[in-house]
């Protein structure tokens, strides 16, 4: 089936004018119920940004508690009402809610929907040469399910008993027992509904991305000519489509335990809180939930990082004016990571009483991930090695990504050893590991993509000076916040505690915690600067005057500066070469659409 047929079957264009000038679209069909992948990308991005700000603000609030456990911020009481006690400190309950919702929202809504939702939508049709997704309608639904999920999650912040507070992993019994703590009631119901909607959104999106990449490529765009962004988004979608349903199964069993008295996870435990007493359930197994959760949970971390890796590969190559080093090795390592991602989930469960013999296999498979990861790092470094580097903000964020991925990947190797993990599990060492390798690296990948493709999205540039400030403060801040956590973690400081001041052995970290809180506030403020840059530039940014401002080879830069629905006004261009002909035969770059010359040297 052709690209045209897909557009036409949804009546995106009327028949005679479907190339060139646009027929009239109402505000509603253009901005709200849009089926144009580029608009859907912007919807994902902006919704994701709203969540990033809310989630970031939550972390600043709970950092207040960690940095200043004895301070009396009575002004917070006026601002946040019942979340703050009379002394002006965040209550323990709201502290746990903040941590939980911060984690959930950043992992799923920002770094999954906001990152791969945005860039899969924007880049897949543009870079493979398609007029839109395989099914623009399902694509629109994917956004609307995400928005519905967002609204439900948001509403949980306002219910009487507060949002869910049992951690982003939602382990039973806290998640299964409505009476376990206030947040486990209505808050947890809303959390589950929101997450179920989110899973549906991811599945609809993922199906579409895979179908588009495999079926809608333009003439000449063989799989091995695709830019690495597309490969990365492809593997991301496969991971999502195969792992989210398993999470859903876990949630379904959880819903039955919560509401219909089944005993999948709940057993005859005794709960003192709220005078719950002994549970009537029998024979449930809370570890079963952990298996189902982490079977998604581990692939999920790669769902976050693969799109970032893809965009970073692309941006590093474009801005070093050099072909990516080891294209096939990059694809191969993405593939290896995808396969391994399904085989290592139990490394999150080394201390659950997992059979140590079984654990040994999971150690081996986990450490194997270091191999493809190292290949990628090596190839990124060799790509920029001796390049004519242009230090655009996007390029800086790409380089920052590589730095963070190395730092965080190395601590992964510590954690992957089950013997070391007995000491490190559930300490700040884990917090440091995953924030550096996933949280900050993922956000850096996202910024790298935003700075690089902003001209394609809005036809204007972001302000560079603000971009540089944004980059340097965020990079320095991220390391200052998370690096020290390795030390407190090694010293045994557990994660997820409300107040460490009561604890003789962790008093030594009091000042460190204060320091981290101050840096966190600064870093948050700088993100507001970025937000300003983003919205200001949409209307007031420097206008893009050339079709291909970065001198890149890929297809999105052959579209008009402000492409309409359908992307190319005329025919879809044909592709004659791979995406990385930089500095070949003395030419600075050769677009993918340029036919191979007769005297050209070896050719991909």
């Amino acid at each position: 089936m052709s690209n045209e047929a897909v557009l036409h079957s949804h009546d995106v264009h009327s028949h005679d004018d479907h190339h060139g000038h646009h027929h009239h679209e109402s505000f509603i069909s253009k901005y709200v119920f849009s089926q144009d992948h580029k608009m859907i990308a912007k919807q994902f991005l902006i919704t994701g940004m709203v969540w990033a700000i809310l989630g970031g603000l939550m972390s600043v609030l709970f950092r207040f508690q960690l940095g200043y456990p004895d301070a009396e911020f009575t002004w917070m009481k006026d601002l946040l009402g019942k979340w703050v006690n009379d002394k002006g400190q965040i209550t323990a309950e709201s502290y746990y809610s903040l941590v939980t919702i911060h984690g959930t929202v950043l992992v799923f809504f920002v770094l999954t929907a906001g990152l791969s939702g945005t860039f899969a939508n924007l880049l897949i049709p543009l870079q493979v040469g398609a007029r839109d997704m395989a099914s623009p309608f399902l694509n629109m639904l994917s956004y609307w399910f995400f928005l519905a999920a967002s609204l439900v999650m948001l509403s949980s912040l306002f219910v009487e008993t507060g949002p869910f507070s049992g951690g982003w992993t939602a382990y039973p019994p806290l998640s299964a027992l409505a009476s376990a703590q206030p947040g486990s009631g209505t808050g947890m119901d809303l959390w589950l509904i929101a997450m179920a909607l989110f899973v549906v959104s991811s599945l609809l999106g993922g199906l579409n991305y895979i179908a588009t990449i495999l079926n809608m490529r333009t003439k000449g765009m063989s799989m091995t000519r695709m830019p690495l962004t597309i490969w990365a988004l492809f593997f991301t979608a496969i991971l999502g489509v195969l792992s989210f349903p398993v999470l859903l199964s876990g949630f379904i069993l959880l819903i039955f335990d919560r509401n219909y008295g089944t005993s999948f996870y709940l057993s005859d435990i005794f709960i003192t809180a709220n005078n719950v007493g002994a549970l009537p359930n029998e024979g449930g197994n809370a570890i079963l939930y952990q298996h189902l959760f982490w079977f998604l949970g581990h692939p999920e971390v790669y769902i976050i990082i693969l799109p970032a890796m893809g965009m970073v590969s692309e941006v590093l190559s474009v801005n070093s004016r050099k072909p990516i080093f080891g294209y096939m090795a990059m694809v191969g390592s993405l593939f290896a990571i995808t396969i391994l991602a399904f085989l290592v989930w139990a490394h999150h469960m080394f201390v659950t009483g997992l059979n140590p013999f079984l654990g040994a296999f999971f150690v081996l498979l986990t450490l194997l991930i270091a191999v493809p990861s190292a290949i990628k790092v090596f190839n990124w470094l060799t790509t920029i090695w001796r390049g004519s580097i242009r230090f655009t903000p996007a390029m800086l964020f790409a380089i920052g990504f590589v730095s963070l991925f190395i730092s965080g990947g190395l601590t992964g190797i510590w954690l992957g050893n089950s013997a070391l993990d007995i000491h490190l599990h559930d300490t700040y060492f884990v917090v440091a590991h995953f924030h550096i390798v996933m949280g900050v690296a993922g956000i850096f990948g996202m910024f790298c993509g935003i700075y690089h493709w902003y001209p394609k999205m809005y036809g204007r540039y972001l302000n560079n000076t603000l971009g540089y400030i944004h980059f340097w403060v965020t990079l320095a801040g991220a390391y200052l916040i998370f690096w020290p956590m390795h030390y407190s973690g090694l010293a045994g400081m557990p994660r997820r505690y409300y107040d460490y001041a009561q604890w003789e052995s962790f008093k030594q970290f009091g000042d460190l915690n204060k320091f981290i809180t101050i840096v966190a506030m600064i870093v948050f403020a700088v993100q507001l600067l970025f937000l300003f840059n983003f919205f200001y530039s949409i209307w007031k940014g420097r206008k893009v005057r050339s079709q291909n401002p970065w001198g890149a080879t890929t297809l999105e830069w052959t579209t008009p500066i402000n492409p309409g629905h359908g992307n190319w006004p005329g025919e879809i261009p044909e592709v004659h070469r791979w995406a990385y002909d930089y500095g070949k035969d003395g030419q600075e770059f050769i677009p993918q659409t340029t036919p191979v010359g007769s005297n050209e040297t070896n050719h991909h």
Partner: protein
Amino acid sequence: MTTVSSHERKRLHPHKFTMWVALASIVMMFAGLTSAYIVKKANAKWLEFELPDVFWYSTIVILLSSLTVHLSVRSFKAREMARYRVLIGITAALGVMFVVLQWIGFQQIEAGGVPLFGFDSNPSASFIGIIGGLHGLHVLGGVVALVYIFLRAYIGAKKVYSSTGLEIAATYWHFVDGLWVYLFIFFKWL
């Protein structure tokens, strides 16, 4: 449109392809549930009980419906619309009948003193209720899809000559059929 290359035409229709990926996703959901079943079975206090015979009948019914949906695609392609209409009707009816039989099966399990849900339930029964129930919902989804495609061919303003939609629905139908056979074997003998 000239840039639509001939090799693009030979490819699978993207919507068909999307259905195959969706099926992989559904497989993962049931794989998750049945592996949870296996894990749970290894724990203490697992209740063993016999499945009522009515599940044999529902299995036969759903197998039959696969045959009728297959024949209906054939008649649609041969443009034997009368036959097509009858066969689609029978398929949808068999689908509903399957779900009813499953429901009766669940009732019989409960009547035999094995509650599916509630505090006195055992996970072995709850699993059958949940997995079987989810499968039934997937069958009902298939019935809705068939009815929709059937009506679209008649009531819609323009006539639909392409068999793509029908073929996609038929693929799905065979899939939920096969899925039930797997689940039946799983519950009965594993």
